């Protein structure tokens, strides 16, 4: 092929960058220039592909050849392979961990082929710093449609019918929130995009903002049109500098192209977006705390009863606050219609869910799956199972306030309501897989250590209760547990859940409650026999063979 044209997509997400993807990108460009291949080979940066564990990642289009774990040294060879006589480099292919067979094409990799990447449709495929790429894949068409073919009410109806639920964790019906905000009296209204992804281990909001910022902006502008707001804020944690940078570029480009600012696309509708960087407090992901934070005050949630943010939010004006992914869904719903959106997922949880799959699983990364998929499919098919032949022990979903579910839940469908029934939650979409070497008391201790530090400090059950639970768990893992501690933990959990002011406290005991519910034996081994069955708690490691029979009891 003398006139071969190809595009090399190199992931420039935070994960791949930490693996050296920026240098690889520059080196690829230099090599292509040096060989004077500029005509036929295009080097392009993209956002996150999701398969971060295998990064840095390169995809070569049009064939969708997928290279993983690329190193700087591989660059000359990769460029050589692009020459007419070149052949794909098998050694950079993904190899099936079970069969060991190389899989050259992106779509054939099990990690991807069970996914349904709709919100993340553009991540890894377009250059997030180039609005042209976004426009080429139909970007801002939904905005055009909303502005010119739909009334605000129709937009809200569309979102309501779609059944979209807020993807920040709580799953409140998005359309209803929009409607409440639209009918709330007041001239001045605001849109806030919540990008304060505070959970350790969750990075889907970051990846979305980094990889496809325009989808988020487009969703926000449509929301502004629907509820009658002229101003929007993206609240991003300051720990996400790349997301901030990409959003800034996107906002500038969107303004230049007339998608933001005065009289958008000549429709007469004005809307602009500002970035607000949070200071890294977990609790600022809570809507009322986030609003206070933007106002320059200490972010502390406001107690119920209080007006909803939709009625009195930022500066007491009606404010629509949605998660990054919720906004990224909007252009899809407007473009493809509510029926398409509602046709996927389960009856009460429509569309897709995005998880940050991490822990003891072969394929870690960012995944998007239809609601209702089972945990087994996620962990074994997409995740490739537990590495090293170890046994699955538990999966923790929903971030630090989620619960740990044992193997008996592997066939449970993943959706908002099933997870809550099981004692966990969708939450931020973190999903941590644990194998037999994980001590569940230690896990509970770990998560309580997080919440006791991140409690805002104002309400007593949360501030002192989480600290107390941590102290008890810490004692247990050090062999200083007392016989009454399990009951005490349950009592405290109950008081914290019923007494706390906001969801942080109300959900903080979940990791403890679920580990006690499903792994009580491990607690008892720690307390009664001063023995850590998983061999994690240093003070409680004993010789093999001394395992008492209580271990593993459920």
């Amino acid at each position: 092929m003398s006139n071969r044209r190809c595009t090399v997509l190199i992931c420039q997400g935070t994960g791949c960058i930490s693996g050296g993807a920026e240098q690889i990108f520059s080196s690829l460009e230099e090599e292509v220039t040096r060989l004077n291949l500029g005509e036929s080979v295009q080097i392009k940066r993209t956002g996150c592909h999701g398969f971060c564990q295998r990064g840095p990642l390169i995809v070569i289009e049009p064939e969708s050849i997928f290279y993983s774990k690329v190193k700087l040294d591989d660059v000359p060879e990769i460029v050589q392979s692009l020459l007419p006589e070149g052949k794909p480099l098998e050694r950079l292919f993904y190899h099936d961990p079970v069969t060991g067979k190389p899989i050259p094409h992106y779509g054939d990799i099990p990690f991807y082929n069970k996914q349904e990447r709709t919100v993340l449709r553009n991540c890894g495929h377009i250059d997030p710093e180039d609005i042209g790429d976004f426009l080429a894949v139909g970007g801002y068409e939904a905005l055009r449609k909303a502005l010119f073919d739909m009334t605000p009410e129709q937009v809200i109806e569309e979102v309501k019918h779609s059944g979209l639920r807020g993807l920040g964790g709580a799953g409140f019906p998005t359309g209803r929130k929009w409607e409440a905000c639209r009918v709330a009296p007041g001239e001045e209204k605001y849109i806030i995009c919540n990008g304060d992804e505070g959970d350790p281990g969750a990075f889907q909001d970051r990846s979305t903002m980094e990889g496809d910022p325009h989808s988020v902006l487009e969703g926000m502008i449509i929301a502004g049109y629907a509820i009658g707001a002229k101003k929007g804020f993206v609240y991003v944690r300051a720990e996400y500098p790349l997301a901030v940078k990409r959003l800034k570029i996107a906002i500038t480009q969107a303004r230049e192209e007339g998608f933001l600012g005065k009289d958008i696309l000549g429709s007469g509708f004005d809307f602009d977006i500002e970035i607000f960087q949070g200071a890294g407090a977990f609790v600022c992901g809570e809507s009322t705390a986030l609003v206070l934070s933007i106002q320059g005050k200490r972010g502390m949630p406001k107690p119920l009863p209080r007006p909803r943010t939709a009625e009195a939010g930022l500066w007491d004006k009606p404010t629509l606050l949605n998660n990054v992914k919720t906004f990224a869904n909007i252009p899809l719903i407007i473009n493809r219609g509510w029926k398409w959106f509602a046709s996927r997922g389960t009856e009460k949880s429509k569309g897709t869910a995005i998880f940050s799959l991490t822990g003891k699983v072969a394929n870690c990364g960012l995944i998007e799956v239809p609601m209702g998929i089972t945990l087994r499919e996620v962990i074994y098919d997409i995740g490739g199972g537990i590495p090293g032949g170890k046994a699955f022990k538990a999966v923790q979903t929903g971030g630090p306030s989620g619960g740990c579910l044992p193997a008996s839940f592997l066939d449970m469908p993943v959706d908002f309501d099933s997870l809550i029934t099981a004692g966990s939650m969708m939450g931020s979409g973190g999903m941590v897989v644990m194998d037999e070497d994980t001590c569940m008391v230690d896990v509970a201790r770990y998560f309580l250590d997080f919440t006791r530090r991140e409690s805002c400090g104002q309400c007593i059950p949360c501030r002192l209760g989480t600290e107390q639970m941590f102290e008890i768990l810490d004692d247990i893992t050090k062999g200083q547990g007392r016989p009454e501690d399990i009951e005490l933990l349950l009592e405290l959990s109950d008081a914290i859940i019923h007494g706390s002011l906001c969801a942080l406290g109300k959900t903080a005991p979940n990791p403890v409650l679920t580990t006690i519910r499903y792994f009580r034996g491990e607690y008892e081994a720690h307390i009664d026999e001063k023995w850590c069955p998983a061999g994690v708690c240093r003070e409680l490691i004993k010789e093999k063979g001394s395992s008492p029979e209580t271990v593993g009891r459920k």
Partner: protein
Amino acid sequence: MDKITITIDGSDIVAESGATILEVALKNGIYIPHLCYHPDLKPIGACRLCIVEIDGGKLVISCRMPVKQGMSIKTKSPEIDKVRRAIIELLIANHHADCRDCTKSRQCELLKIATFIRFDRKRARRLRWAKEELPRDTSNPFFDMDPNRCVLCGICVRTCEEIQGVGAINFIGRGYTSKIAPFGDKPLVQSRCISCGECVVRCPVGALVPKNVQRPEREVKTICSYCGTGCGVYLGIRDNAVVSVRGDTDSPVNRGNLCVKGRFGASFVNSSDRLIAPLIKRKGKFTKTSWDEALAVVVDKLAKYKGDQFALLASTKCTNEESYVIQKFARAVMNTNNIDNCARLCYAPTMVALHETIGVGAMTNSISELEKTSCILAIGTNVTRAHPVIGIKVKRAVRNGAKLIVVNPKEIDLCRFTDIWLRPYPGTDVALIMGMSQVIVDEGLLDNAFIEENCEDFEEFRESLEDFSPGRVERITGVSREIIAEAARIYATNKPAAILWSTGITQHSHGTDNVFALVNLAMLTGNMGKPSGGLYPLLGENNAQGACDMGCLPDFYPGYQRVTDPGVRGKFEAAWDVDLNPTPGLAFTETWQAILDEKIKAVYIIGVDPALSIAGSQRVREALRKAEFVVVQDIFFNETAKFAHVVLPAASFAEKEGTFTNTERRIQRVRRAIEPVGDSRPDWEIICELAKRLGGKGFDFSHPGEIASEIASIAPLYGGMSYDRLENESLERLHTPSGKGKFKPLEFRPPTEVPDVEYPLVLTTERVLYRHGALSWKVEGLNILKGKELVEINPRDAANYGIGHGQIVRIISRRGEIKAEVKVTDASLPGVISMGFHSIESPTNVLTNPTLDPVAKTPESKVCAVRIVPQT
């Protein structure tokens, strides 16, 4: 409010709709435990203790949940108890404290709740108890902050924010390490805390406690003796000493609020510096003597100076009864009208101008009405410093939606709350106010009907406005015409509007004109004789109003009855059974020249320190040196006492009975809380004794109540006053203009000293929060908080003179020079420097200009020309 019916624990209760469950319960005597709720503050629902069950099982926070018709509430249930008990157990496990050494233990809310829920220590022992001790913040001289006892209810944080608008403290840190501290976890004393102690009185536990607490044996209800606000206080007494001060929540003036001086500044009463025996100067040295001997010397001397060779300078600190007796002594015994009080130095222009225009020299409305006003014009007053409790009301009015216009060359704290801040050059107020009036007339924002019906001389006034074109006003004041117009519009269109002023208006050679200008402005917009709208002159001293009302004035008998009116004189001659001198006397400020001119030879000075407090104070010292006989009667040996021949020890406000009249003309009862310190005596007793020894009639009073009856009989203004009535109430005597208000045409007269080549800067003076004359010097904590005497200077001037922060400079005026440390700040206008006026080390009044207002005889303390020289 609509009434609705609800059920609490099975009993039907009628409640006001809109109230919260907790409010209704507490009002009906049903206790629901709570820590973070306080009736003065917005509920935040953080302690979670006040949870109740509503409508069959739902747990809600009762401090935020409004009652609804038919609501059924349970305040006790196993579910509630589980949460409540856990919270209390967690708190106690985390509470590093032993109740036995906590001064709050008797009023501790945590202890109260623990008892209420029958706290079970054995159960709580299952918890991990806190071990780490956190450092206490003991930096404030008056109270300590102990994080180990703190429950983080946030009441202190909200008090600081919602009541004081200061925001000195907040939650800091996160999670279990959260605590309450100033910004950056600095010591409290380095924060913007104003030490008012409002947080200390609201703290439900022992986290914020006053230092050196001594439990009082009893409490005595009386009135604070610092500024003219007249806050009600309870003095706590133990062993004949004042050991505590508590705001009187029933007082219509302060509703329990107090400032740093009022709450923590009473220790002057028991200061070891108090005069405890009469002193006589012999061979240049003072020696202690008996009352008998001291009085004999005074009587012997004064007998020689009867008539106009004698002058008496009265205090604004004494009670009404004392002031009455003092002026009666001067007139009836010494046969002179040379009687004046130190309100001459600050308040006289207000009194004179208001008398002339609206007929009554006092505030036209009550302090409490301020909270409901729609607009406040605060001109020439740093109210949060000089009258901090009135400052609270101003801030509350702003929170309630009132517009605030600040006129002040200095950036004062109130500027943070203002809609518009006008920053004129010192001494240009007449031009500024006339400029505003001009805008109001031009734009038709005036209240024609009010003017027509209630005012005179409007046409003359309107003509005089023509001299105040926007351009000229802008040139004189340095404030742009747009801002002046905007301020005029805000003032004229938000009604009712109140005007607050104090010495920034009066201490000028044209102070009376300044007040005229303000009266004109109020009448022009009809802001007179209306609730919450009108004139609010703020008096600096606790009984400045009373001293004037009682006739400690050279031209007025008690109740503003003119000395020159033969009918009035006849009445007093009959009542006092004596012939009275028909000639008006000399003003406080004219006395010194008269001494130097040898017209006055003996001077009797009560509770005032002219050697320090009068502009151009060297001349006063010179006069004091020259006088043949000087008596000083005071609670402390002040600067003036050094020049005395006899010094008589007076009793403080805590040691006597009587009444004070505050700045809103409320007559309030002052009660004896302790026996007079040492050999000191109440002023009225001393004066009555002297009068009797000098052959005076009508001084046989055995109790101030008898004096009060005489006042009521002879001064119609105080006609209704009797101690029986004052026992449980105060008497509000407000006067709206009767008859017609007079407009005053005005011209602009610049200050008598303006900057020139030799003296290129303007010096202005201002109050320091922690200072209030001699009393505050004797309070150690106030001295600590006050810090050094500073001269504030704009960065531009500092650069011009090549001086920096912390440097010592000499400040020189035509009359003298002093030294002070420099503070470089934008709060000062370029070309204007400012200083406090309370320091002995840097006595600012050495520099200030003694030129008097021609009518009110008040010196121009607020503006003089100076130069500064860096000390080498």
